[in-house]
């Protein structure tokens, strides 16, 4: 039952509230889930009915075959992140949630760009791709496909560079993220 408290008084004025946190930045949530049917639907459904918006979502296996990792990004300017994580914790199949600190995290996403270029512009596009450490993975007479890996910001920057050439389509995986240092994410 614990020790009886001291008799120090407490002023109600000094109490601070724990408010729903709108942090104003992007949050990367790394979620370990049991690999059971319907888990992704439960997560997606929870977001939908609470009015939370998922910006990106990736799902993949981990080194434990019974466990999958979901990495999703949420805009902390729009949604109270603590409510999002508390609601996620209520899902029985969710094992662990980590709200990754941007400074202690390595995050990557992969993108494929199909750009409309003919012979005249191809060289210029290849130069830009090289600056972004992108790879040309397919070339046809009237189009080039470039593969770029990096942070969301880098990929967005690359997009703005190739858009003037005529961007036919773009595909992005959404971010995966891993914490820095020795500890597990």
């Amino acid at each position, binding site marked *: *039952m*614990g020790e*009886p*408290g001291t*008799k*120090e*008084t*407490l*002023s*109600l004025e000094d*109490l*601070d*509230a*724990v*408010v*729903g946190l709108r942090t104003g930045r992007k949050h990367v949530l790394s979620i370990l*889930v*049991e690999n059971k*049917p*319907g888990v992704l*639907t*439960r997560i997606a*459904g*929870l977001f939908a*009915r609470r009015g939370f918006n998922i910006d990106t979502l990736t799902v993949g296996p981990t080194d434990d075959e019974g466990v999958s990792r979901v990495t999703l990004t949420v805009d902390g300017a729009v949604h109270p992140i*603590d*409510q999002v994580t*508390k*609601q996620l*914790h*209520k*899902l*029985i*199949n*969710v*094992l*662990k949630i980590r709200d990754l600190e941007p400074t202690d995290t390595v995050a990557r996403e992969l993108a494929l760009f199909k750009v409309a270029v003919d012979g005249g512009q191809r060289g210029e596009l290849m130069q830009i791709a090289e600056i972004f450490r992108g790879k040309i993975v397919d070339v046809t007479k009237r189009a080039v496909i470039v593969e770029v890996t990096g942070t969301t910001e880098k990929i967005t920057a690359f997009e703005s560079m190739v858009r003037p050439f005529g961007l036919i389509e773009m595909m992005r995986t959404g971010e995966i993220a891993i914490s820095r240092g020795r500890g597990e994410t």
Partner: protein
Amino acid sequence: MRAVDAVMECLKAEGVDVVFGLPGGANLPTYDAFVDAGIRHILVRHEAGGGHAAEGYAKATGKVGVALATSGPGATNLVTPITDAMMDSVPVVFITGQVRTELLGTDGFQEADTIGITMPIVKHSFMIQHPLEIPRAIHEAFHIARSGRPGPVIVDIPQDLSRAEIDYEPVTDLRLPGYQPTTDGNQKQIRQAAKALASARRPVIYAGGGVINANAAGELTEFCRADRFPVTCTLMGLGAYPAVGADGALDPQWLGMLGMHGTRAANYAMDEADLICCVGARFDDRITGKLSEFAPRAKFIHIDIDPAEISKNVPAHIPIVGDARNVLAKLLIEYRALGADPGRLEDWWTRINGWREKHPLRYEDSADSEIKPQYMIEAVFEATGGDAIISSDVGQHQMWAAQYYHFAQPRRWINSGGLGTMGFGLPAAMGAAVGCPDQLVVCIAGDGSVQMNAQELATCAQERIPIKVLIMNNGYLGMVRQWQELFWDKRYSHVDTGEFPDFVKLADAYGASGLRLHDKRTLVSDLRDALALDGPVVVDVRVTREENTYPMIPAGQPAREMVG
């Protein structure tokens, strides 16, 4: 043995003594197993009735209720009770049949995606994919339903898997690594809460259904009486603190229910409080009214077993995650050790008593034999000696029952709060009566609501379940009529239900006793006579047609704007 026989063994191991259900194609194997299982099964007339009965059973007994249905329409008929159980945190396990695995996803006969449909309205669900999973799923379903913040859990079993032969071994370990409810409460936070309460000059204890779920009514009462804390309960929390003492007099610390149709004393006290201690409640919109103007001077202690409720609607200053019973017991010790001066609450009580005297619950009684609906509840209170289990439907009669029937114990008031499900009361009373055969169980119903599950009178007649259904009959969908009167310029639109049906004949057709009352002067003795009849009874009580439920905080308004 067959997987379904293992299901029966699991139910017995979980202490299940009764289930409510209706057979169909996909759960034929389960029903075959019932023949030899030795578990009481009550055949309902509609799956929704079975679901609500399981809820009523759970609410009255504190045990897990069980409801069964077949696939497709059987399962979809459970959607309302499942949602109701989710909103009011009722522990119920629903076991549904599913089409054979080879038919899954083919739009087979009576196929519905039960797991998909119910995903947003369950605490958890199990889609069985292999017969060997069945025993573990059943046990985990019970554990999840009853522990932490209780709620509904579904186990969906395809017909072919339920027939499979399996080697059944009792399951003794649960594998739920992602589910570990926090029950103890942080000691430092509890101490902080005790200190805040000791220094508060205008405190209010605001208790909800979580106190009842945690079986913490005794602890709550003891804590409130450790000082002269004013206490109010939500609709779901009624009975968590005794409204009346053994002598029948109102408890001096009891402010009445709070919220939209709560007392002025309770709502005004919340409005002027400097510290509100919320236990097992969730600051629902029916409590707060206009959120931005809710309790503007108050700091908040919030005790709840569900961390997601804390700071969801109202920011908590001292959050305590834990089981209400554990936390209140610890809080009591901490509080007593502080030796707070009860005299500091003198001014606060003067203010509260001023509101009580000026604004008691009141209504204008009729001058003749007409039965005012409020009087009907007072008469029921008197006729039952205040000692019945009361279930209700949803609407005006529910609010009057909450206001005028004074609950002295927990698990005596069984109603649908969060979802507001018309048709809940009668089957819930049936479930409560099955769970508590030694108690008088009365359903206070509306003439609109009662018809939504009146078919269960047949179940009650067949099973000799002696519920007493008292219909507060005003020939209207009364609460909607009231809102149309007050907020829609009295343009009544589709609220008049007239004289239909004849409830006395309906009762007779179902094999229940039916009678009609319309005289105030003999109402109490007439009700006593009706309650003394054997078997299920339906009493059609004719009340004033257009009476409004007051007082009232108009939707979206702050508490100070109460009307009526």
